[in-house]
């Protein structure tokens, strides 16, 4: 009986090892042992993401493209008035952000940068967090870096924000007393009820989530995780989310930008 159990255990361990050892098959979706959420998704979900038309995120993408050229605000400008063709001017943005705005001494993600332009350069109202328009624009901007490797700057002025993000990532929270690291670094690949835990990579966000039946931001996803461990999420637009976003971008370094990805 004991021998049989040991044998079963050895077999189970081998199974787990082989699942992680074989990373070559994932091509650009795996870098130095770090794997995109894409590699944890079901094949049907991956197929949905890969088909430019079938990917439901394309609805937001098309909307974002419309908004890029839409004049709004007191100064009679659109995004295109200053930035021209997004394919050129926004290329690389999605791979680099969040970045430190030296003038304001603040770490800023794409959503915040878009709103800064709207209020300052356009004289228009800021779009609310998680609004359809802000999601569409963020998706459109990040999509211009499709397949570029995620490459945030985490030293220099960004170092303190990075340190804060890392601390948040490693801090236990909620009634379940879990930190991000417990699921996404120590247990990725294992099942959490019916779902396979991924490495919590951020390279596909904003992403279309089948559970939401909608596209949502990284912040929305992080709030979801926090609620799942029965913790109180940070308020909308909290600095902590942006710090965490920088740390997640560093974790996803080298993985391709997939925005808009399709996930469970």
């Amino acid at each position, binding site marked *: 009986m004991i021998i049989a159990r040991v044998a079963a255990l050895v077999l189970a361990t081998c199974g787990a090892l082989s699942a992680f050892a074989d990373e070559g098959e994932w091509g650009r979706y795996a870098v130095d042992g770090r794997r995109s959420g894409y590699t944890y998704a079901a094949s049907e979900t991956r197929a949905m993401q890969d088909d430019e038309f079938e990917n*439901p995120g394309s609805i937001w993408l098309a909307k974002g493209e419309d908004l890029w050229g839409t004049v709004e605000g007191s100064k009679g400008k659109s995004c295109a008035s200053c930035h021209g063709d997004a394919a050129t001017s926004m290329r690389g943005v999605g791979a680099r952000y969040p970045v430190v705005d030296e003038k304001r001494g603040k770490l800023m993600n794409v959503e915040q940068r878009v709103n800064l332009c709207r209020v300052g350069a356009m004289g228009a109202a800021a779009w609310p967090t998680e609004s359809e328009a802000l999601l569409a624009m963020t998706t459109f901007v990040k999509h211009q870096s499709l397949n570029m490797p995620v490459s945030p700057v985490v030293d220099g002025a960004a170092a303190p924000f990075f340190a804060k993000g890392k601390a948040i990532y490693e801090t236990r929270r909620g009634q379940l007393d879990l930190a991000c690291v417990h699921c996404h670094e120590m247990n990725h690949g294992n099942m959490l009820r019916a779902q396979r835990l991924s490495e919590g990579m951020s390279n596909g966000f904003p992403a279309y989530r089948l559970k939401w039946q909608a596209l949502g931001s990284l912040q929305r996803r992080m709030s979801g995780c926090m609620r799942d461990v029965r913790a109180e999420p940070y308020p909308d637009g909290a600095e902590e989310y942006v710090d965490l976003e920088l740390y997640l971008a560093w974790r996803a370094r080298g993985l391709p930008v997939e925005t808009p990805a399709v996930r469970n």
Partner: protein
Amino acid sequence: MAEQEHSMDKPRVKVPAKVTRGEPFEVKALVSHKMESGQRQDEKTGAKIPRKILNRFVCTLDGVEILRATLHPAVSANPYLSFYASAEQSGEMKFEWTDDDGSTLSARARIEVEP
């Protein structure tokens, strides 16, 4: 200023620009819609959220119906439909979705048949 309403209900369709006479080709149609099932309750008030789905889809080629579908509440948000059709002559394909409230969304696409 209140949040602007940006309508996303512009349907998207994809057909090959050129098709071979009588040969099947794939047609794809995607539309953004909440597809509210009528089974949900408002979290705060407990009131039932009324059903609002696209209940009917029709595709025609030069006015001749080639596919009709009745959709039910279990169909997900942002319904994506794909099917195969074949054509004997060039023409205009029209796609129409009918909402529970009677309104419709439509899209068109031109196909050229090569001998």
